[in-house]
């Protein structure tokens, strides 16, 4: 999948007027820009209870009573949740889905932008819809919606049996399960939380609670057979197909694989485990001791620790490097390959690796101004807004999408120039 190859990497600068929209409409909501940088769009109010979407200055043909959750897909199509005559649906590039629902929320998109899943409610029954096709079976309640990586399947936690508020003993017998494509597992649990698909979509693993105090991971409805004091979200090993999840026992967290303890070290916390693209390494955010946070790679924690927060762990494409955002007090920064960057900001975005894994770029904010930082070097230009940087497929150019004095600007710049 190489979405960026055919984008315009030659034109140094393109601009689209934006602030003028404020004069054309009653109000303009926060803008979004397309991944290729060619479009800027926002929900706009055109009159009392009249909303539309303006993309590059052009309105969609359809006006709606309400619109929310406007987002660009990876293939540069524009999607939003829209309401017409009291019914909700999804509209993509001004073409609404055929199905209408009493409510639609939590849109999820595949990495290639080809598939869209949403949570739906119809007649007070709950389920999911994938690419305009709703589940055949709906449930009394649903949460933790998940879309498979290939975009062909959906899963969620669902309520199987009726119970009234206050029926705590019925609740403890287990009235929840997971449903995959609308079909519930045979087994019921006290709770079912976040689930994950394996690579080919043949298995779903979910964090489950078996009683007030017993937690496990269930795979296709069958729990590990070993219980823990708590678990967090599972993940399939892309190489072996095993299931990895953080587990708590006797006050300490570690990683388990298919029910057996995987990592030797014990931590105050372990979560957000992630595999390298080649599947050979596991990294996770860990707290080696109370109030100290770092990243452990294959159970080896980095020396550098952070007091407040580590977030957004990312592997490089070559699987060798790792970066994440950090927060110490009011200062946000980046930790990469075990070292914390020297520059700090009021906010930082998620680190982006270049395709050759040489560079790490991240959008940053300081004193209400926004710019880009590459490899801990801060670019001197500042903007009113900026989106995540995008590298070209050879990693020698970066596209910056910014708003400058009310004008949207798409720049393509050599990485070397930003590093000067």
């Amino acid at each position, binding site marked *: 999948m190489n979405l960026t190859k055919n984008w315009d990497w030659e034109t140094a600068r393109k601009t689209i007027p934006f602030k003028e929209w404020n004069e054309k409409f*009653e109000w303009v909501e926060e803008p979004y820009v397309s991944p290729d940088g060619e479009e800027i769009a926002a929900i706009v109010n055109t009159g009392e209870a009249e909303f539309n979407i303006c993309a590059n200055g052009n309105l969609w043909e359809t006006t709606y009573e309400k619109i929310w959750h406007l987002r660009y897909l990876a293939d540069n199509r524009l999607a939003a949740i829209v309401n017409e005559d009291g019914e909700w649906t999804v509209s993509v590039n001004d073409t609404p889905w055929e199905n209408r629902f009493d*409510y639609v929320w939590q849109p999820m998109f595949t990495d290639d932008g080809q598939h869209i899943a949403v949570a739906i409610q119809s007649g007070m029954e709950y389920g999911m819809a994938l690419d305009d096709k709703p589940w055949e079976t709906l449930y009394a309640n649903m949460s933790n919606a998940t879309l498979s990586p290939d975009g062909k399947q959906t899963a969620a936690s669902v309520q199987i049996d009726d119970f009234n508020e206050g029926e705590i003993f019925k609740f403890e017998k287990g009235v929840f399960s997971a449903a995959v494509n609308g079909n519930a597992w045979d087994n019921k649990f006290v709770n079912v939380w976040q689930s994950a698909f394996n690579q080919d979509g043949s298995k779903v693993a979910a964090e489950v609670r078996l009683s007030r105090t017993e937690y496990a991971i269930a795979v296709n409805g069958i729990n590990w057979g070993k219980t823990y004091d708590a678990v967090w979200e599972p993940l399939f090993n892309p190489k072996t197909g095993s299931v990895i999840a953080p587990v*708590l026992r006797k006050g300490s967290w570690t990683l388990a694989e298919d029910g057996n303890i995987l990592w030797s070290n014990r931590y105050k916390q372990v979560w957000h485990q992630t595999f390298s693209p080649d599947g050979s390494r596991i990294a996770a955010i860990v707290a080696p001791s109370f109030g100290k946070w770092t990243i452990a790679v294959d159970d080896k924690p980095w020396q550098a620790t952070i007091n407040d927060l580590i977030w957004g762990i990312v592997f490089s494409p070559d699987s060798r490097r790792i970066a994440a955002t950090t927060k110490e007090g009011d200062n946000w920064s980046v930790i990469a390959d075990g070292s914390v960057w020297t520059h700090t900001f009021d906010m930082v975005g998620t680190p982006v690796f270049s395709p050759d894994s040489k560079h790490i770029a991240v959008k940053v904010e300081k004193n209400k101004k926004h710019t880009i930082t590459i490899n801990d070097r801060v670019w001197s230009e500042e903007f009113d807004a900026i989106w995540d940087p995008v590298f070209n497929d050879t990693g020698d150019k970066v596209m910056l999408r910014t708003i400058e004095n009310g004008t949207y600007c798409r720049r393509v710049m050599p990485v070397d120039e930003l590093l000067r």
Partner: protein
Amino acid sequence: MADPAEKIEEKKAIPSDDNIVDEGLEKGAAALTEDKIASVINQVIDEETGARLKVYVDTCIHCGLCSEACHYYVSHDKDPQYSPVGKIKQTIWPMLKKKGRVSPEFIKKASQIASTQCNVCKRCAMYCPFGIDIAYMISIVRRICHKLGVTPLYLQDTANSHSVTMNQMWVKEDEWIDTLQWQEEDAREEIPSLRIPLEKEGADIMYSVIAPEPKFLAGLIYQAGIIMNTAGINWTMPATPGWDNSDMAMYSGDNEIMGRLKKSHFETAARLKVKKIVMGECGHAFRSVYDVGNRWLGWKMPPVEVVHAIEFYYDILKAGKIKIKKKYEKPVTLHDPCNVVRGRGLHEKARYVVNAICENFIEMHPNREHNYCCAAGGGVINCGPPFKMTRMTGNRVKADQIRTTGASVVISPCHNCHSGLEDIVHHYELGTEVKFISDILYEVMEKPE
């Protein structure tokens, strides 16, 4: 000095609390064996406590100086059974002394005492000459009872709601978002371009509330929308679970669900890349995000700064982002919520805010960190109707406090306190209105034309 707890038997008969029947306690205790009880107690003591509990237990000299601090004790005419140390004597001490070999009936009674006759308000810790945190010991009792499956029904149901929905009132995911959009639409009658921005990544502030707001008190979200828009705040609210900052699992002893809730809350803020979380007028939720839940997860402090509504109102009033059209004229008093006053020291900021918006502020006595608890917090009001009279008889002193002020309005910047005080006002026929700060702020502020 208060009467020693050993004299319990000599005192007059205890009022109705002993006769309360709660299905969660009854059925839960009926399923227990003494072996199971001993196993769980010893597991919790050995694996989940340490020097802190041992020091507290070994240091207490049974002086009873904690007694006068407790609204239950004072309101029950100094019945030592309701003194903090008396409650310890009836719960954790026998568990320790007998190495866990206590009866199911004992556990049932211990759970009732720990969950309904102590608000874990920590007032007593200030009066103990050694600073022993009795609320911590009561929390250990609740933890043991949780693991034994003996928790008051309504409190357990709330914890169950938390576990399923990540909010305390079984609010479904679509109901939450729909309520925000409904309030936004209503508020546009007043400010036509008003927004309650959903899922706005990069906003300065994520505003979080507790589930009673969308469930019963949606007007508070409306008011927040007016205040945020008028003050020109770059804010957002999440359209995913994680929006509810409340935490009754913290009070039922279900630490694992507490941790799950706080993880969801803070990770929602991190995902939205906000710089701060501003939370509505809730006290226990602040305790959970600022002290207990965050620390169970391994964070020493909240990973994203959390600002209680009192402090937020203080900031925007002080900065002139909200102007007052005409101050509120009725005489008001202020109830200092335990969790944001003893727990965070917001009492002076609360007074700044009240004086900024009200003409006639009358202090309640005692006040600030010495204020008496509302008797609703600490999960007690969440134990539901069976225990309402426990709260009423256990807080006569609060009724006296309010009555003495002569104020016609008591301001309570905490949801549990607010609900508890409404019950107190009604039960003791005080005729006082109970209001949130935002009720008055919304009424007296200048709004955009």
